[in-house]
């Protein structure tokens, strides 16, 4: 027993080491329904296969490049939604706020002729202010966020129409840096590969340092072969993606920006005190309050983040369309963003979810929409099929998760 690390001494624990142990562990977790994002990935693979069979263009490099670019704007909005859902609240107004942000950008940039960075800053700040307002209303009056943001949905839609005013639709110049960023800027191949290598190296290095620290503290840790295997796998996947997308236009900067935001949010949520308090508030707000956490500040911060991300998403959407108009942000932006978060495993009741969920979720949603777009169906059939495929994706996920309750995890 003395050879066991501090955290492995309980004799009820079934300790497994090495690669075989990892496999046994995965199996065990699969039985327990605790597979993290794997089921969503499986769902995604199923959908991709089906769509590819229906139309062989679907998995073509060119189409996947489109897919990445189309995911970015709504994906960033979904990232904000994840934060709000994590504390058990909701924001229905992300569509309107993104539309308003695009409108503000266009009016300032094109209408008033301000420099683009100033217009962007103004839009983003507008988003943050909206979120701050929500936070105040929520904290001071205790109005359910559903209602606050429903009011916001209406009010900011009105504001969007008002800001666009007599023009109704404003073109962004095609040769501006912003539009280029969203439409035509791709990462050069060498840089993409460098990114892939850096990511893999970083994964290994941080894992290695962490394991060393743990071992020094007398705790169990992953072995070097494990860590190396993991980084090599990541490298292989990334390199393949870069290579395949590079067959046509490559990896868009906008997508890189989105992924970077996901990584930053992942860090903030999982490695900072703030992230901890977000999960705590979502899990049990009263317990969080009693632990001395400033619950109001946490609520305000997530509302601000969510609206800010909505504004950023709105800017990118406008840039990608090269126009801001009255219907920007309308339609299913809200639903798609929330659905992406939920499909990615975020609970509507708070306390469960990850930033990567938003990435996966939006890719599922955009895959469905892009795949069906290629099929040239009647719109009535298209709606039905979209619904069915969406359900299919999530059933795969849920079925693999559902043994969970019977194993006692809620």
């Amino acid at each position, binding site marked *: 027993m003395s050879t066991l690390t501090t955290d492995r001494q309980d004799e009820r624990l079934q300790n497994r080491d090495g690669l075989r142990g990892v496999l046994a562990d995965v199996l065990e977790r699969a039985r327990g329904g605790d597979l993290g994002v794997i089921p969503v990935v499986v769902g995604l693979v199923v959908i991709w296969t089906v769509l590819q069979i229906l139309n062989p263009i679907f998995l073509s490099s060119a189409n996947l490049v489109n897919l990445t670019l189309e995911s970015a704007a709504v994906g960033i909005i979904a990232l904000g939604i994840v934060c709000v859902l994590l504390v058990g609240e909701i924001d229905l107004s992300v569509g309107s706020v993104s539309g308003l942000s695009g409108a503000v950008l266009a009016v300032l940039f094109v209408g008033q002729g301000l420099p683009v960075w100033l217009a962007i800053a103004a839009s983003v700040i507008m988003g943050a202010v909206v979120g701050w307002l929500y936070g105040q209303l929520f904290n001071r009056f205790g109005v359910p966020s559903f209602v606050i943001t429903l009011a916001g949905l209406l009010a900011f839609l009105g504001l969007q129409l008002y800001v666009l005013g007599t023009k109704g639709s404003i073109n962004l110049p095609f040769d501006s840096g912003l539009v280029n960023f969203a439409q035509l800027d791709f990462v050069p191949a060498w840089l993409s590969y460098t990114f892939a290598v850096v990511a893999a190296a970083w994964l290994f290095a941080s894992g290695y340092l962490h394991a060393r620290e743990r071992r020094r503290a007398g705790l169990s840790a992953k072995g070097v072969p494990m860590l190396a295997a993991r980084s090599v796998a990541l490298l292989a996947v990334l390199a393949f993606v870069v290579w395949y997308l590079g067959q046509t236009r490559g990896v868009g900067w906008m997508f890189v920006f989105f992924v970077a935001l996901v990584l930053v949010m992942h860090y903030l949520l999982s490695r900072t005190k703030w992230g901890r308090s977000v999960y705590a508030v979502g899990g049990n707000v009263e*317990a*969080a309050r009693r*632990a*001395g956490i400033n619950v109001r500040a946490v609520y305000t911060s997530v509302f601000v983040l969510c609206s800010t991300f909505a504004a950023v998403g709105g800017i990118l959407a406008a840039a990608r369309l090269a126009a801001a108009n009255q219907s920007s942000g309308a339609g299913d932006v809200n639903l798609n963003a929330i659905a992406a978060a939920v499909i990615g495993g975020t609970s509507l009741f708070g306390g469960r979810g990850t930033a990567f969920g938003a990435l996966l979720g939006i890719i599922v949603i955009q895959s469905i929409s892009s795949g069906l777009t290629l099929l040239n169906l009647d719109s009535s059939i298209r709606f039905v099929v979209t619904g069915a495929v969406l359900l299919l994706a999530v059933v795969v996920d849920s079925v693999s998760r559902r043994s969970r309750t019977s194993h006692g995890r809620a």
Partner: protein
Amino acid sequence: MTVLSLRGISKTFGAVAALTDIELDVAAGQVVAVVGDNGAGKSTLVKILSGVHPPDAGTITFGGNAVEIPTPAAAHRLGIATVFQDLALCENLNVIQNLFLGQEIRPLRLNDVAMETRSWELLRQLSAKIPSVRVPVAALSGGQRQTVAIARSLLGDPKVIILDEPTAALGVAQTAEVLNLVERLRENGLGVIMISHNMADVKAVADTVAVLRLGRNNGVFDVDQVSTEDIIAAITGATDNAVSRRVQKGARS
């Protein structure tokens, strides 16, 4: 030296007067046991002291100054650490995350290793039988959770520790460790308020016993000069009660 003193504390919930005109004094290095029947208002008193509920009336003096405790954060700042009866843990977080909630090590880049090491230390000290600290609290047994809640209150550097039925779900060994712990806290000069239904434990560690009955003070006793029967009589409000009848029956049979 009195660290904490309450005067005239009252609290009503709707039509129920949970506390009426309560007085209580706790000195540094003193263990005050608060006892009383179910629903006597003990936990309500604890919640008032830890900033969960504001009192309807009355004054709280802490370290000689009149204070208000509007939020739990204010109680933390004063140096009041509390183990709540309902534990107040986040079920979705794991043991380490719960232990360090609100007082994480290295806020901008959490130091998981240090926190895990410290967690094991604390839990060992309380004889906790927790197989892994990386499972969500939802997966722990009742006693394991209570141990986590107790361990948490030891993390900061409190002046007063309030324990609301800390041993209710604990096993015999863990209970013994908690009683040891209470004695250590006293020796370190902390004020301790302990709520318990177990008269043996109360007699073992407390210095004074304050009895609540239906939301009112019903006597403060020096533990050395009072018998268990007298405390029970003060709690139930009668010398002929279910407990004494059971004792008699046991004696007869």
